[in-house]
């Protein structure tokens, strides 16, 4: 068994696994969090504690995609609507019953030193293993000078982090908002302020859609809406990019709890490969319940074992140096698309995608048996017309006709004339065809030897290699 425990995250936070619940409705009260721990979650960031709010109904909306629910999720719910006393009393209870799980207090109070000092001390007295400063909430609270209103101004973020650090005895995590031009500016400020770790990303400003009958955007609150925070599977790529930006920047990098569209162990592994020490999940739990953590823990452990990673630290951050600036990419690396004729089902989506959306190098011009690459002899337009006249489609009603209709020509299950041909001399290796192909491993991108040594744009333009600038007349 590989060990998926988390030890000493951001200094001193331990948990039985890296899967934490993010500060959100699934961590609204002690009873929920205890059930979550029973289900297998390693930690929980308490729904943000502060001066209780009044919420609106409705609060959530979603973006469905192709008939599937919740590709992206949006909320306009504020922080906890329960009193600080209730939350902290329950927190103490949870900590007493689950001493080995991580309980993090997410905090948001008015921007003055005393208020922050007080909430920090009370939370730690209740037994919190760490504090997460909510500088990220993009809706509602920001209008009151809190949440992302702090997280978008590095000076505020640094100042409040420093206030918290004056009192905090447990690790302090700063939760970053993505609603900013460069997330690193606030990460750096938090680090300057003394933060022990970071959480990223919070939700992204969004309007999920508009009801085309009422013309009111969702979620509808008595005929109006307000921009909400976007999360769920749709935001994962954005979150991964921001995680990479933070972790690759020495002035920003801190122990990081990754957040954003994590639904499976695969997602979690990707965040950890970019440097996260723990991950936080909300939307997937709101969709399917706490039970999803079982597969996350099993799947991660099993993948680690197959990769011979004994501990999380063994693979944490391993993909970080695989991300670089564009100028450092090898311009002479060449791949081309190869179509496996035996797998092709003849949907020809690669053809139309390449033709209309890429570089016009996948052709539907095959008329004979196995070839790859060359052009074949084709019928004349007159022959084509005669053929189409002679082959008017009718329902195959007799057994003979039915047998003939099911037959293909050529050695593959798909007729040769429906299997596209890649012109490898024109193929730029963009990947598009392999992305649209609905069949696994049917189109693969194969490396071809360009016969030229590796060279980057940086090397080409700054003379770091021997390459000579092409002469222009």
């Amino acid at each position: 068994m590989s060990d998926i425990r988390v030890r000493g995250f951001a200094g001193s936070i331990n948990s039985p696994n890296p899967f934490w619940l993010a500060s959100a409705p699934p961590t609204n009260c002690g009873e929920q969090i205890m059930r979550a721990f029973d289900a297998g979650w390693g930690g929980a960031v308490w729904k943000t504690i502060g001066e209780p709010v009044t919420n609106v109904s409705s609060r959530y909306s979603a973006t469905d995609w192709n008939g599937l629910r919740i590709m992206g999720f949006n909320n306009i719910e504020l922080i906890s609507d329960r009193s600080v006393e209730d939350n902290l009393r329950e927190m103490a209870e949870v900590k007493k019953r689950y001493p080995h799980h991580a309980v993090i207090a997410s905090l948001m109070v008015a921007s003055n030193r005393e208020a922050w000092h007080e909430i920090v001390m009370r939370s730690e007295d209740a037994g919190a293993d760490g504090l997460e400063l909510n500088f990220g909430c993009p809706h509602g609270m920001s209008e009151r000078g809190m949440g992302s209103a702090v997280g978008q101004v590095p000076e505020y973020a640094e100042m409040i982090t420093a206030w918290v650090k004056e009192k905090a005895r447990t690790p302090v995590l700063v939760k970053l908002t993505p609603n900013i031009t460069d997330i690193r500016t606030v990460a750096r400020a938090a680090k300057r302020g003394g933060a022990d770790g970071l959480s990223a990303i919070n939700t992204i400003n969004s309007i999920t859609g508009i009801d085309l009958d009422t013309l009111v955007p969702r979620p509808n609150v008595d005929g109006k809406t307000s921009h909400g925070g976007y999360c769920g599977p749709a935001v994962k790529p954005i979150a991964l990019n921001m995680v990479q930006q933070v972790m690759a920047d020495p002035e920003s990098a801190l122990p990081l709890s990754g957040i954003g569209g994590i639904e499976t162990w695969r997602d979690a592994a990707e965040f950890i490969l970019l440097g996260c020490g723990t991950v936080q999940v909300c939307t997937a739990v709101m969709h399917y319940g706490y039970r999803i953590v079982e597969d996350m823990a099993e799947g991660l452990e099993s993948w680690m074992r197959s990769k011979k990673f004994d501990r999380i630290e063994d693979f944490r951050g391993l993909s970080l140096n695989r991300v670089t600036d564009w100028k450092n990419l090898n311009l002479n690396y060449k791949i081309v698309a190869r179509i496996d004729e035996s797998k092709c089902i003849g949907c020809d989506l690669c053809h139309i995608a390449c033709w209309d959306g890429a570089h016009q190098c996948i052709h539907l011009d095959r008329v004979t048996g196995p070839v790859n690459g060359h052009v074949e002899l084709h019928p004349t337009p007159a022959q084509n017309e005669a053929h189409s006249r002679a082959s008017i489609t009718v329902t195959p009603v007799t057994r003979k006709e039915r047998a003939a209709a099911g037959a293909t020509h050529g050695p593959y299950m798909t007729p040769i004339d429906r299997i596209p041909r890649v012109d490898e001399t024109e193929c730029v290796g963009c990947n598009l065809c392999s992305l649209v192909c609905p069949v696994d491993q049917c189109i693969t991108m194969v490396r071809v030897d360009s016969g030229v040594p590796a060279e980057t744009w940086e090397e080409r333009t700054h003379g770091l290699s021997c390459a000579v600038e092409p002469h222009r007349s």
Partner: protein
Amino acid sequence: MSTTTLPDDPQLRERFTELKPPLTPQAATIEANRCLYCFDAPCTVACPTHIDVPGFIKRIASGNLRGSAMRILDANILGGSCSRACPVDILCEGACVMHKQGRHPIRIGQLQRHAIDAFHDAGGDVQTAPRGSRHVRVACIGAGPASLACAAELCRQGAKATVVERRALPGGLNTYGVAEYKLRAAESLREIEMIRRMGVEFRFGAGIESAEDLKELESEFDFIFLGLGLGAMQQLNIPGEESEGVMNALELIAGYKTGRIRELAGTVVVVGAGNTAIDAANAARRLGAETVYLLYRRGERDIPAFESEYEHSKVEGVQFLWRRQPMAIRADAHGVLLLDTVQVREVDKELVPIPDSKLTIACHLVVPAIGQSPITDLMRDFCRIEVRDGQIVIDHATGQTGNPRYFAGGDCTNGGREVVDAVADGKRSALAMLKIAEAMYV
């Protein structure tokens, strides 16, 4: 004159519950989203009317249901009845590339039905060019799918079309002959009502019996389209065939669909194993017959019915008697029929009776279902139209017969295929007539 005149019959509806119930809107959206949206899609090629299948499915996925229906009706004005009656497993759905991945093909038929039903439910109408804007007048003889498709296409493009029908209701086999659990007569009529609103004129009870009738049509119209279908069902040619209690399959099907036959009991023997025989046998079961035998002179592997129809009939409880031929029908004193049959075997493609294999089946109804006979004598004799093997000879690309004013399509030209084939024929003929007319008037 309205074309919808069949009363709703709850008992019929209950007995003939639909084989494929409609998809809910959400199920349709999910199914539509499964479609890969193939380029130059094989399903479209496989459809005789070449409906843009991925095109209409994409529109269902996006919620553009009217656009979806229009996409279907553009190619196939009887898209509604085809969505129910088509043997999709050997047409569009059979061609779906999903098969090649071992996945269930897209439910194209049910999606098509979903779009067309929504169109009808919203009282949708098909846009047509101004009536008379094309100088062509066409008479379509017979109100079956071929004629309807021909007339609708002509009207859509601004020509005048009149459908001449000897029966009281239009639709041909769509109304009178397709199993009710696939296509209800009322739905066929609803579709034809839409075609009537497009400007197609109907003359009912107007059989074309003589050369004079045809001459009259020739004087009134530029072109005549023959959508005659096939003739009466073929006889068994055995003694006792005229007995009461012998009723051919089409009679039985038309009878229950129009409410004349409401109930059967006892034992029914259907002779033949084509799709119509299967329809009749299933209908007999659903109408209450306890035992239904399907008698076929060859073996299970030789039956002309589609695989799916055969499988379905087993589910309906039809029992099969293979390699058995009817010899005579007798009536006993209590009005029960005695059907004498004999086992046969194939010797050099000839069926030879096996000695001492006689079996007499006591039954209440014998249903011959061994095909329809051609009815093209009049045409051949009067109109100088070539008839070969009982089928009117046409140029398949245009539907034109040897007589340039006469076009033909559907069962009378192909010996009996599917609704969708008839629609394709009718449409091709209409387009060819318009092309000829354009050349004449420009």
